[in-house]
């Protein structure tokens, strides 16, 4: 990546250090953003490889490749790696790159801590992945870690728990940094209600992170003490309750899924106006909708637990509260479509992914709404219907938004265009095969196939095979993504400063492509 242009030289504007130490010692938001994004891509491939083994084992009935115990380890680690290693770091990477440029700041507010937030991650994941090689293997109780099953984990248990602590520290520091940056580093005139939606969504996401990561840390700490220090939080024999863990976990876990989707909403809200050449429709209602979703996310957690035997009043309350989330989410969807309405649209790769996001995420939202209906969730719960739901929200939601964001901003970051042709190929392959991969899982779930099983009854064979084929093809298509990014960075065509005809925002209007090492050493005046 080339850096620092001559126009922005201030007294302590220094260029990057040389060699490897640059990346280890850096306090620069762009370097740290790059680190996050590269780390995330690696983790996406690691987690994806596990998913490929899962799909290969499920290709046909019977056990062919892996033992059931190892299968459960793969499911668990696939989810942990994807959620905490791929999707969350990718969004933090985007935040690092973009927030200072979008609000007219020289860097993040707390640059040293920014470095630490990142450099905890590789250590945390090294510890987690090392558990594969320990006696008893990796954790195998699902990413939800329900006791008492999780207590049957071998050596890996404390490593898992401490990994969660490390990731928690990392996320909390990252979130604090984002809040401090947004509250304290905006350029003069950049009022809160002028901030791009990506900044808004991250602002709200950061609050979610600070509020729930400590809860997750507390939950796993109790797992640790129950196993090694004799406490009985989750054991009825001592007056505790295994279900208590589920409450604490989902109090974290539900906001967690919105942590993975709100920044995606921000990305889409940036891309659609650009390619519709028309301002975002309903800016302020988008902000309020995001805030409502975040608020609601704290009071709906037990919709993951409809079958644990809650009292009737609890079931009803959590059903009503969960259904409510469809309202603000719907507002977002309608606003995106109104933004497109009577625009002048072109469909470059970022826009294609954004359009696919709107459709496919909404499909995931619909299945979410179906599961919110408690009596019917008794049938859906813990089946592949749910697996389909959350891959629609996470893969065609979060991951597609990340793809869109990378295609959209990569030319700005590097000053190089990617190959539009290959980008489109990547899009079409992805969008088709991701549906071959996950749509049939709705049928499997409705027909009665439970999740987290390595082998299944013969009547589920056909759709599993379709799903696996889609999975392999979708996986292979992602190699193309890596290739496209790599070739663009290495020697793509030069990008203009505006990059896209309809692009708006400080990063496109005021900064060259690539931007200088410190974006705004002199604050711009925002009108």
């Amino acid at each position, binding site marked *: 990546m080339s850096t620092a242009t001559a126009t922005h030289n201030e007294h*302590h504007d*220094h260029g990057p*250090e040389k060699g490897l130490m*640059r990346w*280890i010692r*850096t*306090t620069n938001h762009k370097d740290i953003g790059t680190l996050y994004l590269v780390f995330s891509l690696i983790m996406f491939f690691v987690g994806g490889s596990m998913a490929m083994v899962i799909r290969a084992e499920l290709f046909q009935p019977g056990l062919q490749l892996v033992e059931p115990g190892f299968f459960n380890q793969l499911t668990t680690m696939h989810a942990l790696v994807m959620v905490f290693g791929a999707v969350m770091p990718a969004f933090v990477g985007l935040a690092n790159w973009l927030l200072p440029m979008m609000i007219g*700041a020289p*860097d993040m*507010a707390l640059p*040293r*801590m920014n*470095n*630490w937030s990142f*450099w905890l991650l590789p*250590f945390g994941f090294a*510890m987690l992945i090392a558990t594969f090689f320990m006696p008893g293997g990796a954790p195998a109780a699902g990413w939800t870690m329900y006791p008492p099953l999780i207590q049957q984990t071998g050596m890996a248990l*404390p*490593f898992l*728990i*401490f990994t969660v*602590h*490390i990731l928690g*520290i990392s996320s909390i520091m990252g*979130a*604090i940094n984002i809040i*401090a940056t947004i509250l*304290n*580093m*905006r*350029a*003069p*005139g950049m009022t809160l209600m002028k901030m791009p939606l990506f900044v808004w969504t991250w602002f709200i996401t950061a609050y979610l992170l600070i*509020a729930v*990561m*400590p*809860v997750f840390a*507390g*939950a796993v700490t109790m797992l640790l*003490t129950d196993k*090694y*220090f*004799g*406490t*009985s*939080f989750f054991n*009825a*024999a*001592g*007056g*505790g*309750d295994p279900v*208590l863990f589920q*409450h*604490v976990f989902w*109090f974290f876990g539900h906001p967690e899924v919105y942590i993975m989707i709100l920044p995606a909403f921000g990305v889409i809200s940036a891309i659609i106006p650009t390619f519709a050449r028309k301002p975002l429709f309903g800016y302020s209602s988008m902000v309020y909708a995001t805030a409502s979703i975040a608020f609601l996310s704290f009071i709906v957690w037990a919709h993951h637990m409809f079958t644990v*035997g809650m*009292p009737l009043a609890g079931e009803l309350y959590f059903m009503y509260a969960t259904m409510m989330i469809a309202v603000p989410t719907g507002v977002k969807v309608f606003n995106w479509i109104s933004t497109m309405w009577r625009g002048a649209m072109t469909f470059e790769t970022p826009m294609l992914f954004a359009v696919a996001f709107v459709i496919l995420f909404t499909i995931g939202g619909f299945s979410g709404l179906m599961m919110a209906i408690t009596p019917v969730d008794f049938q859906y719960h813990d089946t592949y219907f749910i697996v389909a739901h959350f891959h629609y929200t996470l893969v065609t939601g979060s991951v597609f938004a990340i793809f869109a964001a990378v295609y959209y901003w990569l030319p700005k970051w590097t000053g190089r265009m990617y190959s539009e042709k290959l980008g489109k190929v990547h899009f079409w392959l992805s969008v088709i095969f991701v549906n071959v991969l996950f749509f049939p899982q709705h049928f499997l779930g409705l027909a009665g196939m439970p999740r987290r099983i390595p082998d299944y009854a013969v009547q589920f064979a056909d759709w599993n095979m379709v799903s696996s084929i889609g999975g392999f093809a979708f996986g292979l298509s992602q190699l193309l993504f890596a290739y496209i990014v790599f070739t663009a960075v290495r020697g793509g065509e030069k990008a203009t400063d505006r990059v896209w005809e309809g692009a708006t925002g400080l990063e496109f209007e005021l900064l060259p492509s690539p931007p200088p090492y410190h974006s*705004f050493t002199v*604050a711009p005046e925002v009108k």
Partner: protein
Amino acid sequence: MAHAQGDYYIPNGTNWPILGSIGLTLILSGFAVLLNEIAAGKWMMILGALVFIYMLFGWFGTVIHESQAGTYNSQVDFSFRLGMGWFIFSEVMFFAVFFGVLFYARVLSVPWLAGEGDGVMTHAVLWSNFIGEWPLLNNPDPEMFKSPEGIIPAWGIPAINTVILLSSGVTVTLAHWALKEQKRSALQLWLLATVILGFLFVYLQAIEYIHAYKELNLTLGSGIYGSTFFMLTGFHGLHVTLGATMLVVILIRVFKGHFTPDNHFAFEAVAWYWHFVDVVWLGLFIFVYWI
């Protein structure tokens, strides 16, 4: 907002974070190894702790140095304030978990096991001998989790500790006022008093724990009462110890004459932390000891 931005301080590259990661990872993976009954874990932990402490001295040393050199403008100062404030909020959420667990046990799980509400069949079929009460002095399965023989009453040491901690909140505020009015000896005196009160609290808490373990069989392993009791008071005690240690650092810096009436963020940050620890204790006193 709307500060002149030209001189927002952006530090150069730094080694401290990576050392922090190495130290923390060594401590935690060492602990994990130790929990798996492999003695080498101890050495990993010690090594990690050394690295970590080195990192703390280095990092804070650098920051203190920069602060004394006047590198930070008021905008940087505000970033620090935001950082500390939201860090304390995350700590609040951490304690909220264990308070939540306490309420769940008291309001839901123990009554259910005793046959209230939806727990009729649970009680009748599985725990027909169990009597629900709080404090829980007879566990559902006393063979597995030996029941405590007694609890720590609120109006003994805990009440004294409440007075101690509340007065330490006052003394730290007095110290702050003294700092702002540049009364150095009053500042030193009140700060010293705060530190002493802090450690006195920890000392009394230790006595209480020993009593609970030795004479009452009130332990982490004595059922949900002991579990919630020690988890809440234990994490609180750790935070008091940490806060008191930070106060000691501030005290040393006061003796070195580091703070001025309008540049003493470190002092305030620790004072905030101390008030936070104070408020948590009030919650503990009310919900764990008293009612």
